[in-house]
């Protein structure tokens, strides 16, 4: 069973994509519900809002503990929450992955874009997908990938899909496309 953090954002789109990829899903809205799932997706949305709601609901510590033993896949705002360091502006994060992330790094909504990207060999080998349709919406940029991190997809030299151990972070939104190869890759980690 894979959970989708449903505090705010496009969690419904994530759940639908996971179902298309063949997963059993449940929405996670509090710390207790984290106990029922073997992995978690943190969706896109506003990272500042999600942080507030995590604090209001007393979920921050529970999520940190969860990340020590179970896989998490974060997209966009989710990737920001997984990072070790966040800038523009700096804000708190879970620190589950050794990546540094700059928020809204491409600019505002008018700079949002859809790109067809050729993934790294490793991604193709594991998923069979030879291209990835990447939907970037007010997207962050991963400025640094620390030890143990592996770049699976890049755009203009910047990492946009990064794996570190059991965790996965994407600055784009695979849940807003028909292709579920990124979701399959994550489900393989559960």
């Amino acid at each position: 069973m894979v959970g989708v953090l449903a505090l705010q954002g496009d969690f419904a789109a994530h759940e639908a994509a996971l179902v298309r990829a063949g997963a059993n899903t449940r929405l996670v809205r509090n710390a207790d519900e984290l106990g029922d799932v073997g992995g978690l997706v943190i969706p896109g949305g506003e990272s500042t809002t999600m942080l507030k709601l995590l604090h209001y609901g007393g979920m921050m510590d529970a999520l940190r503990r969860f990340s020590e033993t179970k896989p998490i896949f974060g997209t966009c705002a989710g990737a920001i929450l997984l990072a070790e360091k966040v800038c523009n502006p700096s804000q708190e994060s879970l620190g589950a992955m050794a990546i540094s992330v700059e928020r809204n790094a491409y600019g505002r909504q008018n700079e949002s874009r859809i790109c067809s990207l050729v993934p790294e060999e490793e991604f193709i080998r594991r998923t069979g997908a030879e291209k990835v349709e990447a939907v970037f919406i007010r997207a962050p940029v991963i400025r640094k990938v620390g030890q143990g991190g592996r770049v699976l997809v890049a755009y203009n030299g910047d990492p946009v899909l990064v794996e570190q151990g059991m965790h996965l972070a994407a600055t784009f939104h695979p849940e807003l496309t028909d292709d579920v190869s990124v979701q399959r890759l994550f489900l393989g980690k559960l």
Partner: protein
Amino acid sequence: MFHLNGEEFRLKVGLAEMLKGGVIMDVTNVEQAKIAEAAGAVAVMALERVPSDIRKEGGVARMANIKVIEDIMKTVSIPVMAKARIGHFTEARILEALDVDYIDESEVLTPADEENHIDKIVFKTPFVCGARNLGEALRRIGEGAAMIRTKGEAGSGNVVEAVRHMRAIVRDMKRLTTVGKEELYHEAKQLQAPLELVEWVAEHGALPVPNFSAGGIATPADAALVMQLGAQAVFVGSGIFKSSDPQARAVAIVQAAKNFDDPAKLLEASRSLGDAMPGLDVSKLPESELLSTRGW
């Protein structure tokens, strides 16, 4: 339909998807924008006057002073929206050039065109539009709106119109899923809406874009009510900064939008809030003072 699957439209709807479950707050200056962001707003609507003041002061309400919008854009890291008058595509072009994240073609401002809404398909910046019923929502989507919100009755502090509009939209969508395919031509005629969009709704039982609520939401309970009726996020205009303790109310409404179906958490969010904004009995307002009847 013609533009629903295009890349630009997917990006416009994509940002609206990211705002789901959240609260978009009207702000008139940098201090209010900071309070909204700190409370957990998913976006702010930059304005010169909130709707209840527009209602009180009268006169022509136009696009906000650029400096006000710009200062707010520089201050917060969340998306910033701004309003253009109905049909005023030049105001909208200016807001697009300013690089705001969303444009609200809004009945709260004085309409600039009594027949035509803005052709929103040709813009790169996405639009949200108000609607009182399904036909109006689909006409706006046909023109390129990537997000729909109920009109409600802005600045009234009275949720009754937002409820009426959300119920009407949801009821008509459900009904469309039950009628025969051959009846959809007649439905499109009745709704005065593009046939392709009527067919889309009949197949999916939902709008092809996110469906939010606005107009008269003043308390955490109001926000939770419209979410339960089917709104996927809420806009709060005068309700926060016309209350006695905006900071506490902003936090409470953010929590209510997330916990809309959890009465214990709603009770918690509703404690120690101070006074809500004063409300108006919408049924006693003269027709000429209604904002929701602007646009068609």
